[in-house]
């Protein structure tokens, strides 16, 4: 099963390497990892999507806890949360195809952020299934390049993860 972990870490050089290294050397698969600073400049937040059964996730969590710079870990998989990914897609588009692509972009409430001679860059945010769907819809035109951020997530309601 796929789990979403929200991990608070100290905002210091080398923390990402420690976390990523722990995953690889213990044989855990990271599906995605997104990291950025938080409202507190001393703390960064990582959203890690990892595949595994309960035993694996328990070990992942415990091993993460052993890293001195990891402050807090929450498995939010079963909580109500907003999860988003950002994707940029460069798609083939000559003048004849543009209007059709723009319709697709509208349907997914995505945006066109760059227009080139023969291509467009489309920006979309959403959960994983939406991102996959827009990618599939654009495939027939010829996708030249895709870049995705990996999931970030925040639990709904007034409570925060550091409280």
């Amino acid at each position, binding site marked *: 099963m796929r789990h979403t972990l929200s991990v608070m*870490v100290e905002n210091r050089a*080398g923390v990402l390497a420690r976390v990523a*290294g722990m995953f690889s050397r213990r044989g855990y698969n990271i599906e995605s990892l997104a990291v950025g600073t938080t409202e507190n400049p001393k703390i960064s937040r990582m959203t890690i999507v990892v595949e595994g059964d309960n035993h694996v996730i*328990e070990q992942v969590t*415990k*091993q993460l806890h052993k890293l*001195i710079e990891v402050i807090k870990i929450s498995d939010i998989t079963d909580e109500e949360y907003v999860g988003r990914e950002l994707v940029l897609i460069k798609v083939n588009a000559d003048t004849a195809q543009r209007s059709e692509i723009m319709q697709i972009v509208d349907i997914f409430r995505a945006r066109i952020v760059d227009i080139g001679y023969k291509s467009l860059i489309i920006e979309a945010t959403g959960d994983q299934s939406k991102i996959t769907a827009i990618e599939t819809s654009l495939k027939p035109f010829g996708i030249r390049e895709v870049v995705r951020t990996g999931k970030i997530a925040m639990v709904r309601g007034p409570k925060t993860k550091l409280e």
Partner: protein
Amino acid sequence: MVMTGAQALVRGLEAEEVDIIFGYPGGAILPVYDALINSSIKHILVRQEQAAVHAAGGYARLRGKTGVCIATSGPGATNLVTGIANAYMDSVPVVVITGQVSTEMVGTDAFQEVDITGITHPITKHNYLVQDTKDIPRIIKEAFHIAGTGRPGPVLIDLPKNVAENECWEEIPQRINLDGYKPTIKGHPSQIKTACRIMKEARCPVIHAGGGIVGSDAASDLIKLAESIQAPVATTLMGLGAIPADHELFLGMLGIHGTTAANRAVSECDLLITIGARFDDRVTGAVGKFAPDAKIIHIDIDPAEIGKNIRVNVPIVGHVKMVLQAINNQVEKGKRSQWLARIKRLKEEAAYSYPEAGKTLTTRGVIERLSALTKGNAVVTTDVGQHQMFAAQFYRVKHPRAFLSSGGLGTMGYGFPAAVGAQLADPKALVVCITGDGSFQMSMAELATAKEHNLPVKVLVFNNNCLGLVRQLQHFYCERRYTAVNMTGNPDFVKLAQAYGVPGYRISNVEEIDQVLEEALNNGKLSIVECMIEKEELVYPTVLNGKGLDEMVISTGGYYGE
């Protein structure tokens, strides 16, 4: 007061009451060595950096306080790596200080530059690359705190040269503030209650005691528990000494070279109480066949060890000593005459697991005599190999912190530098390093270190001109195709001793054992005793790959178990 970063570092070490550090100088660490001149801290110059970590580890394990070692950047730092990994695997508190090239050179592949913090991420409890001189006092304090608390382990501080040279105005902080490091000390009360209830209900309990008992000074609490619930105790290699070997409830070491008594008892028990141990594969054999009928209570300070290799029924996270005290306060006394009669029978059988050696000089024969002559009171360090297993089986360790061996990593070359560290930790102790011709050659350069400081370590070299344990593996797994195990270029170890100006002895037959050992043990000097043994001696019992502990191979037929 204004001082250099290096001076601040040395002051930090003094504040942590460091009295000895083991090290090897070099360019990038020069400022620290310069600052050490005016310190009360004694520096022990080793002959290769790996020995510095092993010695610091030996010191830490005997003394019960954090050991310190120091080396320069690049090769100095990389030579430490095996020793750091060893300390990490065996949860030994060590603070490692390495020099680094100046910050403006970092990342340029400068002379003697290596990314030692990157290299040691997986083998340190934590590490630091000091970026700013003002951080030094805080980092030193944190490093000792992290190394010595919770599950102990090595912490590395990588100190760039310019950071060591710059001015430091900062004082040592009063408090440590680590949001991400708060080890659980007290066991959960309801889990402890459950554990006590299960102990009461058990008919045939066994205690499985590991290095955590020794490391947390909980030996007396362990014995109290064993006696009150009348449970026999099997220890891991790291746990030897947690209960005196002559205690009637002691089963011996368990595992793939464990005693028949320990392995059978664990396989038959209905409750296994694992304390400060981590179910290493050398202990469990095939995990699926380990303690098949037992409920398991697992007490450990490291939550990540619980449920890692073996599913447990009652996990208790906490400081082993505190948890044992809490259990001892409420557990009901047990009386298990039937189970203890069974244990007694198992122990009697165990005495016959090796056939009589007769007139053949054997490793176990010499170790049995060493054990008798020292009454189990020596501090024994071992290297890795057959001699290590014989030492674990036949040296009757009486005290905790008195059996120092490389457990998790199995590092050949550990024993002698660890003995150097142990002797410095306790100058009055009788320190005996039990080693083999293979292992000793990995660190015998440290004879010079021991000689320089007049350390009366006794080195017992079991010389079979071969890598005995590898040969034994080839015996069982490669249909006796022996390859790359003969050590044909061995030196004469007696003459080697003489080359260093210290006594060298040789034991060639059974009659010489007592006389030579007595002389060597009582001469007050660094000594080498070379014991000429046969290649064919095998360690029994042995549990082959994929087998359970109760399927161990026991010596059959002739002396060599052919």
